[in-house]
């Protein structure tokens, strides 16, 4: 094993890759610019849309109720909704988003209520549509208020206290630390991004250094040089790993910088949780996550190298690697799902295990035993991937596949 030769190959590949526009874009531009812009941009946009919808008074149609003037009057005076005159095609109007909801008040509603019957008010909505949901919530709130007032009135009429309907209050208080709350909300997202970026960062150099060499005809040139094939593959592997880690680290730091810069904006948007939603991540957690992701980056880099080497051309390599993207993203996504928790069996599933443990680390919980198990198993997978890549480089039918 000659470290000198590996170093020579690595230095050359680094120079070569840093002059390749595609690698530069995927390694530096995407993480530095695109990632924070898209993730935070989408967040801001969503918050804006919801905020806008909350400010508007949605159009609501009141059906029936001509014989219940008291209710209708109160409904019309509501500032949070805008009542429009009844039309028979209300269902279509809701479906076409011309109006957001309709409320059907039964015949003789006020009278029936007065007699102590149980009339039903029906709210018609477009399920899952944001503005319709908001309109329905407001209508429901209004009618609940109406009902409570009615109850209180009846109690008072019978000489009883109004507080009889509400014998006690319920409140919620958060006792988890801000780190835990933030970790639980966003904790799964960061490791997910780190892992996915490790993959995207490694992808172009891995293809460029293998299938790219075949396509450009330099593979024969390098194979007739005295550098051993193991040294060659290890030098290339180190370059791919560098790109992988650089992409990931750059993306994380640019995300962190954007978060800090946009903290006020975000705090304003998340007004209802403003006390808890502080970007509280301990630097040591980030470090621990990077340490845990390291063997995954090795696994992905070596794996990509082995696969891309098999391909004859850039295009072919891309068609092999695209499905692999899904294969890596899927377990990372599963870890983001709420309720998926770490256990001994999941600790052996590559990628998924790391995402899960990283999620825990983000909340400030360190399961040392699991971390050791996951790190060790990831190292085994990574070693296997390197071994595979080295073996691939020794196969003539792979190197000269035409």
């Amino acid at each position, binding site marked *: 094993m000659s470290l*000198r030769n590996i170093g*020579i190959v690595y230095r*050359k590949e680094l120079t070569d890759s840093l002059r390749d526009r595609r690698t530069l874009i995927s390694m530096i531009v995407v993480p530095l610019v695109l990632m924070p812009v898209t993730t935070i941009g989408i967040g801001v946009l969503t918050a804006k849309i919801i905020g806008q919808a909350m400010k508007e008074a949605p159009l609501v149609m009141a059906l029936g109720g001509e014989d219940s003037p008291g209710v209708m009057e109160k409904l019309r005076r509501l500032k949070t909704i805008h009542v429009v005159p009844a039309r028979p095609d209300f269902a279509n109007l809701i479906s076409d988003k011309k109006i957001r909801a309709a409320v059907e008040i039964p015949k003789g509603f006020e009278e029936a209520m007065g007699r102590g019957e149980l009339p039903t008010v029906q709210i018609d909505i477009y399920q899952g549509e944001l503005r319709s949901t908001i309109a329905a919530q407001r209508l429901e709130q209004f009618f609940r208020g109406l009902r409570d007032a009615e109850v209180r009135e009846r109690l008072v009429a019978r000489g009883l206290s109004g507080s009889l309907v509400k014998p006690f209050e319920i409140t919620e208080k958060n006792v988890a630390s801000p780190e835990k709350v933030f970790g639980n909300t966003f904790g799964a997202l960061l490791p997910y991004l780190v892992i996915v970026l490790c993959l995207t960062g490694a992808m172009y150099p891995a293809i460029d250094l293998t299938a790219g060499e075949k396509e450009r*005809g330099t593979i*024969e040139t390098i194979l007739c*040089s005295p550098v051993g094939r193991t040294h060659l593959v290890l030098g290339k592997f180190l370059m791919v790993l560098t790109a992988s880690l650089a992409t990931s680290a750059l993306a994380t730091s640019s995300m962190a910088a954007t978060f800090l810069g946009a903290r006020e904006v975000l705090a304003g948007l998340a007004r209802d949780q403003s006390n808890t939603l502080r970007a509280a991540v301990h630097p040591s957690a980030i470090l621990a996550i990077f340490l845990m992701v390291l063997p995954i980056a090795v696994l992905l880099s070596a794996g990509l190298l082995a696969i891309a080497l098999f391909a004859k051309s850039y295009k072919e390599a891309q068609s092999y690697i695209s499905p692999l993207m899904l294969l890596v993203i899927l377990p990372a996504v599963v870890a983001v799902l709420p309720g998926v928790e770490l256990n001994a069996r999941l600790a052996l599933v590559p990628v998924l295990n790391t995402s899960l443990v990283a999620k825990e680390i983000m909340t400030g919980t360190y399961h040392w035993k699991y971390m050791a198990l996951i790190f060790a198993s990831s190292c085994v997978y990574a070693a296997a991937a390197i071994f595979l890549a080295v073996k691939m480089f020794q196969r003539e039918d792979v190197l000269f596949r035409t």
Partner: protein
Amino acid sequence: MIKAQQLSKRFYDKKRGTIRAVDSVSFHCEPGQIYGLLGANGAGKTTTLRMLATILEPTEGTALVAGYDVVRQAEKVRARVGFLSTATALYGRLTAQEMVEYFGRLHGIDETLLERRIEEIFRRLEMQEFCDRRCDQLSTGMKQKVSIARTLVHDPPVMIFDEPTLGLDVMTARTIVAFIRECRTQGKTVIFSTHVMSEAEKLCDTIGVIHNGRLLAEGTLAELRARYGQQELEEIFVRVVEEKTRRP
């Protein structure tokens, strides 16, 4: 010195089964001589030369190159061989200088010697003006010079050329031919493959006719002319191939 002994290479192909790309080929070539492998496309020339350059490993047999065994001492062989073919492209994003430096370093040449040697080679090949330009911005002729510089950087005693003039224009092809001659003058052992008869006639001390992986005839041009009663190498080549295909 090159000495091929029963060199054989078999490939396995899904459709065609086992292919004998090279079948028990033996020949030898002395320093200061040019050995030409003459054959049609797919005759086994490239495979033979790749085995000599240790890019491919022989299925059977072996070869001695500069005194070392291509199977057991592959790295020693590679250190003593310069291999050039139209398939050995340059790294487009490296400059001419960096390209030659890279291969010099891989050959383990120390930096001061490397610097001196590159300067000398670049001067001899008149490459100074474009030494800092990226290889993908060079003309075909300039690229060929960079490739030549790459094969010379470790001053190898054995040179292997695989169809070195394929697809080149007349002027560039002439530089290559001149370079091959120069290698002979310097006492290097030279082997090269071609399917261009005139090139073989002009350059080779010994010609080997290869067809379907087998070496069918071998000798100096004069010997071959006498044996087959033909003046033109093309006629000789056709006779050799026809004779052997009729009586296998």
